[in-house]
């Protein structure tokens, strides 16, 4: 965690420099965006529009596949917020994936349209997330991890006791009998797309806000953040509840796309493994990482499809190797090499007289190793002192 940490400390420090440096001829400017950001935003918009139009163009097999991609992207983004920023390594997020699915099932059993049940299920997961946080926050790091796992197991053991929910064998989702199957596929796809876009946008907005500064500081150094007055436990609790809601949304999409639910699968640790591997491989502690990681995940899955469970073994080994030798993940390598960030959550300081971003030059300065090194987008001039400490 140290490498991305240091980079972001620079970002946070740069963020504290409010406005012009003063003094020098031709004052320095501080902006959030760079030209790549504008292109990235435009590109993202185009991608979302094209993805939204896709059901008119392709067969349902493709959209069904993409639903799985969006679901994992949602879960990985949530896990990234948990582990990458708030330092909460949960291996029990399947508790909320399963809960989200079962809440949709319960509501549809009471004649609520499943697509309307989705937001209710999300809210329900957030509400359940609060007492769960109260319990598991008593433990730290590894014990916290296993405690979340136990919670997921408890959820499963409770759910199977209700015959009305299908007990141990599971149940089918009703409520779509009058809907044309083609339309259902398209609606499901749009719902999944909406969920992932909202989740990524939400994470982005959180990280740009004041809370994001706290989270970034926590990611870099929890003790430091605490001593600077950041309300670490409260922020962690907030993130835990958000992640509960997000994973609940993913679970709701899963049951709607599969039209059935089965307790062992719904509360399987497999979900946690997938979101963790996707995040680690893509790059933990960045918004782009989980998105890229999900794409890599499915590319590997597709290419190793004929070897059965081997794809998961390979994924696990790759994730372990990345965690050990490239802790910033594939996206970390890319952004380090080319100095790009698609989601600017920090600030960019333009030294006086410098008009164009000099990504490479900034990089060289950073890799030369004088701490605290700035990230690509906070390319500092030689005369800039460190920013005032966060207050």
């Amino acid at each position, binding site marked *: 965690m140290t490498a991305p940490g240091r980079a972001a400390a620079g970002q946070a420090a740069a963020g504290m420099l409010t406005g012009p440096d003063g003094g020098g001829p031709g004052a320095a400017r501080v902006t959030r965006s760079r030209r790549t950001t504008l292109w990235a935003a435009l590109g993202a918009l185009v991608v979302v529009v094209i993805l939204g139009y896709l059901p008119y163009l392709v067969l349902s097999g493709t959209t069904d596949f993409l639903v799985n991609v969006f679901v994992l992207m949602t879960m990985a983004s949530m896990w990234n917020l948990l582990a990458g920023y708030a330092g909460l390594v949960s291996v029990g997020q399947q508790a909320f994936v399963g809960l989200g699915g079962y809440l949709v099932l319960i509501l549809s059993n009471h004649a609520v349209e499943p697509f309307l049940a989705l937001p209710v299920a999300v809210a329900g997961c957030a509400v359940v997330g609060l007492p769960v946080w109260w319990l598991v926050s008593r*433990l730290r790091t*590894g014990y916290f991890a296993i405690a979340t796992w*136990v919670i997921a*197991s408890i959820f499963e053991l409770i759910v199977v006791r209700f015959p009305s929910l299908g007990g141990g064998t599971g149940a089918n989702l009703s409520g779509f009998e009058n809907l044309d199957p083609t339309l259902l596929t398209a609606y499901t796809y749009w719902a999944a797309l909406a969920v992932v876009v909202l989740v990524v946008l939400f994470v982005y907005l959180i990280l740009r806000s004041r809370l994001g500064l706290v989270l970034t500081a926590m990611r870099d150094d929890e003790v430091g953040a605490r001593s600077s007055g950041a309300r670490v436990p409260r922020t962690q609790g907030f993130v835990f509840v958000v992640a509960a809601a997000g994973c609940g949304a993913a679970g709701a999409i899963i049951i709607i796309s599969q039209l059935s639910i089965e307790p062992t699968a719904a509360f399987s640790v497999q979900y946690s493994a997938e979101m963790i*591997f996707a995040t680690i491989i893509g790059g933990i502690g960045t918004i782009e990482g989980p998105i890229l990681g999900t794409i890599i995940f499915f590319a590997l899955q597709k290419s190793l499809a004929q070897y059965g469970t081997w794809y998961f073994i390979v994924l696990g080994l790759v994730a372990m190797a990345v965690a050990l030798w490239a802790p910033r993940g594939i996206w970390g390598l890319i952004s380090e090499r080319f100095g790009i960030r698609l989601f600017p959550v920090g600030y960019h300081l333009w030294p006086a007289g410098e008009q164009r971003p000099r990504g490479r030059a900034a990089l060289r300065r950073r890799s030369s190793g004088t701490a605290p090194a700035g990230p690509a987008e906070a390319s500092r001039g030689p005369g800039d002192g460190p920013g005032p400490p966060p207050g």
Partner: protein
Amino acid sequence: MSWVNAIIQGILIGGLYALFACGLSLMFGVMKVINLAHGDLAVVAAYTALGVITITHVPAVWSFILVVPIFAVLGYVVQRTLIQAALDRSVLTTLLVTFGLSVVIENALLQFASADSHSLDIGPLVSDSIQIGSQISIAWLLLVIFVVAVVVLLGLQYFLSSSRQGRLIRAVADDQEAAQLSGADYRHVFGIAGAIAFGTVALAGLAFGMYSSFDPTIGTDQLLLFAFEAVVIGGLGSLWGTLVGGILLGVVQQIGAQIGPSNQILAGQLVFLLILVIRPQGLTARRSTA
């Protein structure tokens, strides 16, 4: 009378849980590492014993003579390489790496050994029991496992508190840098602790394989969670506490099963939650170390 029987069975099985848990507890106590692959290691040990028995034709009961040393060596090697490399990065990395290891082990077992369940065949020993009255019967196997567990935990406690190597381990656990300054190679000490942890979990895995059937997924579905619950119930960082926690978990599970067979696991987990609410530092710990 059946309640007394349930409690007695619970105490005996609790010994096995404590045996599972002591490696987890030791690795956390010494290296601050939570090994999420702990349960899977026990399952691997049971499969290894199956292989050893097939090749060497030793009776299943004696397979531990080979398997436990193999796992101790494996523990030293894995600690010195994989886990140490992760430790050098961060606590987060150790969690990710051991979780990755757990998933890889489980899927590899599914790939090579199929999802079928196996058990270590110990012949008539599995059903021999001492009959007390009409309701209570104590299986010899469980009794032996319990005695082994208590001997191992007490032995480990004695080893840590009294032997030279044990003092070294405690010194490194207390203050890694100070121990290093005094000439202790903390990496080697970590390796020793890893060897002990892997050895005990292998022993627990073999005992479990003789007592019940096992399959590739039981390591994470049950064993890791039980071991963890025993540690938390008893109190972190105390082997005595782990023994108490294991026994309490076993008793609660058996009482739950007495009420209804589907309650067994849930009862244990609810007690775990209860402890988390009212006494997060565990039953035996004096102050919070979690």
